[in-house]
């Protein structure tokens, strides 16, 4: 099964990358851009598990390695 773990900086943690992108978009002439946040997606192909188990496994992985809970939140989506 395919699962997608999205890791974003927590609200309140400064996101200089997001800020820089927002700035660059403005320079390029895009207006109306308000908040920009940048995160990571990790797409995993996990074999031999049902949807629920895949979700649980991905959650374990996120807590253990993929996200640093001091500064980051994660969310999980089983894709297929």
């Amino acid at each position, binding site marked *: 099964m395919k699962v997608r773990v999205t890791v974003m*900086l927590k609200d309140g*943690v*400064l996101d*200089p*990358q997001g800020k*820089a992108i927002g700035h660059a978009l403005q320079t390029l002439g895009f207006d109306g851009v308000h908040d920009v946040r940048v995160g*990571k997606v990790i797409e995993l192909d996990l074999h031999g598990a049902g949807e629920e188990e895949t979700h649980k496994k991905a959650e374990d992985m996120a807590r*253990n*390695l*993929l996200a*640093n809970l*001091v*500064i980051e939140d994660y969310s999980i989506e089983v894709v297929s």
Partner: protein
Amino acid sequence: MAIALKRVTGHAPRMVWHHETDLTGVDLVVLPGGFSYGDYLRCGAMAAHSPIMPAVRAHADKGGHILGVCNGFQILTETGLLPGALLRNANLRFLSQDCHLRVEAEATPFTHRWKKGDVFRAPLAHGDGNYTADPATLEALEGEGRIAFRYADAKGRVQADDTGCNPNGSVNSIAGIVSKNNRICGMMPHPEDLVDPLMGGEDGLPLFEGLVEALVR
């Protein structure tokens, strides 16, 4: 780092492979800099899970001394041996330059050769050195005197929002911290790269000499 340790202690440190699991007989564990696992995902994240780390943790639990520099500091925060985290540099670029550090705590094995307020030069070289922590942690660190070093200018002026003084944007200009028991120190700049006049100075020497003295005691 190995070169600096040898210069100060007179003997070569034992190099430990990340797959090893044993640290018996070791006085000081040093986690040096250097892009473990390519710094992919997050700096130090994967190294924090390498097989040697339980032994490092056990060493810490026994009250052993640990120094983590640069990537080593990142590993210490990733394992939770030190609080907080290191974000991308505020300007989003790798920084390789000299900085100045102001000594903030003088009663630790890492800093006792200096006096509070002393300023010394140290090279830094990292892409993710922007220290952050939640407000409660920060308050504890400040309150307990656990900020070891702050970024400053050559005259010792600390100014968090000035990249001339605080190059990577760290909160409260924090460059290095220590654990509650003062035995674990993590810092981003590289004092080990300034221990030889030929290489441009001996500014980093007090840290290592002081550490040796503390360990012998």
